[in-house]
């Protein structure tokens, strides 16, 4: 069906984009630097540039990559899981739920951390998981799964979680900045500690989903068929739900809610290379990472002197392109 050549082409293209993205993220910024500065830094390692290159730009670019990869992997899993291209961490309510948990932990003062893994992440995961389970249970009617119900319940539950988050911020927060962070997302204060939190989670989830990708291919054909082909449906479903929630909630707890990535990237990749999850998971991750890295680069460089919340960029860049893509396919 989909020739191997096409996949290789996409992956090598993405790899080139990744290198280019890392390069521009490192070289461009509000402090004027160029390739020579970067080179000098690598050779002579002077202190000021070390901070700018390593602690500000590199950590930020890598964090954007990891969050983008996590969100679109989470989206790819959810789209397979619910057999619906409209699913995504934001649509089924995971993101909003996780953001509510994170803000609640922050306000209750429960944000202590052990080995870089903070209790806030646990809260984000717990409430994200609670929301998605609720949505799942509510959208089943006598054992029959209804897609419209799923999407509507997801949107409603997400809106409820968002409103609770806004409520907490409105009454308890020290500043408006927090509202912008938790509701629109930002990498402005990215640092290596965030990467330490999200990197192991991403790798773990990625390996698990890659390992179970074959089973996902079966699940898409319907639970009975999957069962008859030797896949333990219930267990696999549980694992996938946990993995996708973990991915989305860990991203939210380091960067706030970033919409659109988890919805459009997996969809886009599926249009390009077909529905085989063995390749879909991997390519979505890379594509999502590169996409968000570029979006963050734009967010911090478009206007000198002030930054745009990244959610504005992801939607502004993503949506028109997505619509174009959908129309082309028709």
């Amino acid at each position: 069906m989909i020739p191997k050549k096409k996949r290789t082409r996409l992956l090598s293209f993405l790899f080139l984009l990744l290198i280019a993205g890392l390069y521009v993220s490192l070289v461009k910024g509000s402090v004027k630097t160029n390739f020579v500065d970067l080179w000098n830094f690598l050779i002579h390692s002077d202190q000021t540039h070390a901070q700018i290159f390593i602690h500000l730009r590199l950590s930020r670019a890598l964090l954007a990559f990891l969050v983008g990869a996590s969100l679109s992997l989470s989206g790819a899993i959810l789209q397979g899981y619910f057999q619906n291209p409209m699913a995504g961490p934001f649509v089924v309510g995971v993101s909003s739920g996780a953001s509510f948990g994170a803000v609640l932990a922050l306000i209750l003062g429960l944000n202590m951390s052990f080995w870089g893994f903070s209790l806030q992440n646990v809260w984000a995961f717990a409430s994200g998981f609670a929301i998605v389970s609720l949505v799942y249970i509510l959208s089943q009617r006598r054992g029959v799964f209804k897609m419209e119900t799923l999407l509507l319940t997801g949107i409603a539950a997400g809106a409820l979680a968002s409103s609770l988050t806004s409520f907490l911020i409105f009454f308890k927060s020290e500043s408006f900045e927090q509202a912008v962070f938790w509701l629109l997302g930002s990498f402005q204060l990215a640092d290596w500690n965030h990467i330490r939190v999200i990197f192991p989670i991403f790798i773990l989830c990625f390996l698990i989903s890659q390992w179970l990708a074959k089973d996902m291919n079966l699940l898409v054909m319907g639970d009975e068929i999957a069962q008859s082909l030797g896949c333990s449906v219930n267990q696999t479903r549980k694992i996938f739900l946990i993995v996708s929630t973990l991915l989305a909630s860990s991203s939210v707890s380091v960067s706030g809610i970033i919409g659109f990535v988890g919805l459009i990237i997996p969809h886009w990749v599926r249009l390009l290379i077909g529905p085989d999850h063995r390749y879909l998971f991997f390519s979505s991750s890379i594509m999502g990472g590169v996409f968000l890295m570029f979006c963050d680069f734009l967010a911090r460089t478009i206007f000198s002197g002030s930054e745009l919340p990244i959610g504005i960029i992801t939607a502004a860049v993503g949506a028109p392109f997505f619509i174009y893509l959908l129309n082309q396919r028709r």
Partner: protein
Amino acid sequence: MNTIFKYTAPALCLLFFLNPAIIGNQRLTIKDDLGDTHVFGSPPQRIISLAPNVTEILFALGLENKIIGVTRYCNHPKKAQTKNRIGGIVDPDLEKIIDLRPDLIIAFRGNPLRLIKRLKSLDLPVFVLEIGTTLESVFSLIQRIGLVTQRENAAKDLVAHLNGDLEKTRDRLKNVRTRPKVFINLHGKGLWTCGKNSFMNDLVREAKGTNIAGEVPRAWSNYNREELIHQNPDHIVVLAKIEKDYLEVKTWFVEEAHLESIHAVQKDKISFLNEDLVTRPGPRIFEAFDQLARILHPSSFEDDK
């Protein structure tokens, strides 16, 4: 063991007493309002301010030449506008800050905590100050800034001078017995006002007025229009950057807001107060205090001019 101690003990004692002399200049250890300890050797030479009121205080302490960066909101004094802009209060540009190589960054608790933590994790010398909620807390703010910049004398003089201004105005008000009801209008037409734990609330109290939103437990709040009619304030004080904005808000109050029944609207007691003056707990807050006192109690100021 004993003999070693016998010989070294006096030497140790001597060292202990000579210590400051040996080091030459004193090393200052000061805790900031987040509880973090800072050690200062020689006076800071490259200062970045993360708030307009801090910038105003630094200028008033004669530190003009030591300031290397201010926020985009720092517009006073005029010379502050010629300094490097490092971005906003909640979204400063970290790259620019690092590139300027500051040896002191003065932040306040209006800068988000996440931001302050990030600056600290980059090993930047951030000194965080609590602003307080009373007029007099400005004095301790000035003294703390004087201490970390090693301008204690200048700070002392400034405080004495400002305290003189404060007392002068207070003196005018000392025979005032009635406290008119005041509604402070913060931004434009939204009926945003300041509650209990705000600086403005203390300003109104000091100016012998009653803030009708003074019981609202939050610092900032969106006031209810029915409640406004019910409370019936004698004065509405509109904070605005420029007179044009004030006139717009005033027109709204008089013509569109359906508040004709309010005393302040009926008697045309809708006044203008410069937003920058009032909202920045710095040296100019006492000017704002004087202006507000004149608005609320014009008769107490009749004999000067």
